[in-house]
């Protein structure tokens, strides 16, 4: 059957796309890399707070490992001038492998900035 230029173009592009998809999936499956998740906070910055007595922080959590995780809980803690510690937690439903997700947390305005810490508390391997 004789094919028009349009059909040949669509077929060629489709073939390339399918080959890329299958090839990439297989490459990713068999690439000799670590298969553990690795979650880190790569960026923290000040943001405008919705309350005058609070300070807001936005952050970017990255899973640079090779496994997606679910229910990734990140804890922010800081000390008040009187030495008391305050904590806030943010939970991401999913942190896919190799991807980033943005989050936001609010802390009391008077926390000592140098004591702000963040850590990945827990996650689930789905």
């Amino acid at each position: 059957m004789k094919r028009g230029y349009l059909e040949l173009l669509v077929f060629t592009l489709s073939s390339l796309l399918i080959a890329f998809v299958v090839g990439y999936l297989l490459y990713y499956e068999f690439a000799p890399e670590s298969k553990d998740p690795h979650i880190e906070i790569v960026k923290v910055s000040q943001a405008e707070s919705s309350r005058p007595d609070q300070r807001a922080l936005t952050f970017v959590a990255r899973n640079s490992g090779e496994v997606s995780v679910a229910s990734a809980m990140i804890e922010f803690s800081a000390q008040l001038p009187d030495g008391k510690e305050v904590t806030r937690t943010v939970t991401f439903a999913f942190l896919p492998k190799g991807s980033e997700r943005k989050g936001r947390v609010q802390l009391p305005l008077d926390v000592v900035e140098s004591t702000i810490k963040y850590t990945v508390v827990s996650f689930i391997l789905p």
Partner: protein
Amino acid sequence: MTRAEDQTRRETQSQLKDYGRGLAGGLLFGLPLLLTQEVWYSGFILRPLHIAIFLTIHFVVLLGLVWVAGFKAEEERGLGALSFEAVETLGLALVETAVVLLIFGRLNAQMAMIEMVGKVTIAAIPVSIGVAIATSQMQAEQESPDGPGHGNRPQSREPRRQRTSVRYMLVVGGAAYMAYNFAPVQEMTVIALSMTWLHQLALMALSLAVTFGLVFALEFKGGTREIRDGLLEQPWIETFVSYAISLVIAAGLLFFFGTWEPEDSLASLVNHAIVLGFPSSLGAAAGRLLL
């Protein structure tokens, strides 16, 4: 404009219409899953190898659907032409899915390539089924000597549709499409866990009764009017075999989406498969009616 140029222009217009119908069908059939959260998650939770294997199996199903229906207005086609159209179908579905997910903000620069590839591939499966059967569902009504009710399909495909192999191909396609819509969602597990053996028996009976009624008893358009001699064409046998196929497809999809894993009990698989087997068997019946 010469006659040859005019002919080329007409062919191009006709091909553009074919592609347009295919894309419209893909959107119509694929949209529910394009907007389903579990499908987006499946794209990065599932193992890439499983997605690749599933895509390969799906391509074989797609070949069958293109043979039965297809989005092009062509009539008789050999295996080469069918493969050509199946590749185009899958390619169109992948591009359409990526564009829709991009517009909905489900693809962005923060995502890893593997997340985007997985998500688009999983969501493109039902879209490709829609592209494949677009013509039989949405092509303009044609004059038919058989009278009303036969006009939607190219006439030369009508006898083919009555073949046993084609009817079972439609069972597979319909069951796979419908089960795929429900397999990833958590509600399947919620229902399966809350059912007793009495509920399960009742659901199996309901699945068989509804699909028998749809295809054989209620005289829907496209239902079987002529009962043939073949064993697999006897109404109750076809109903039971179709239901068995629906259950197998449901079980396969439950495994694929990770709802059931080999470490789980066999009883758990049976519970889930009976629940998913209901929409799956309805899809199998609808496939035989619609195309």
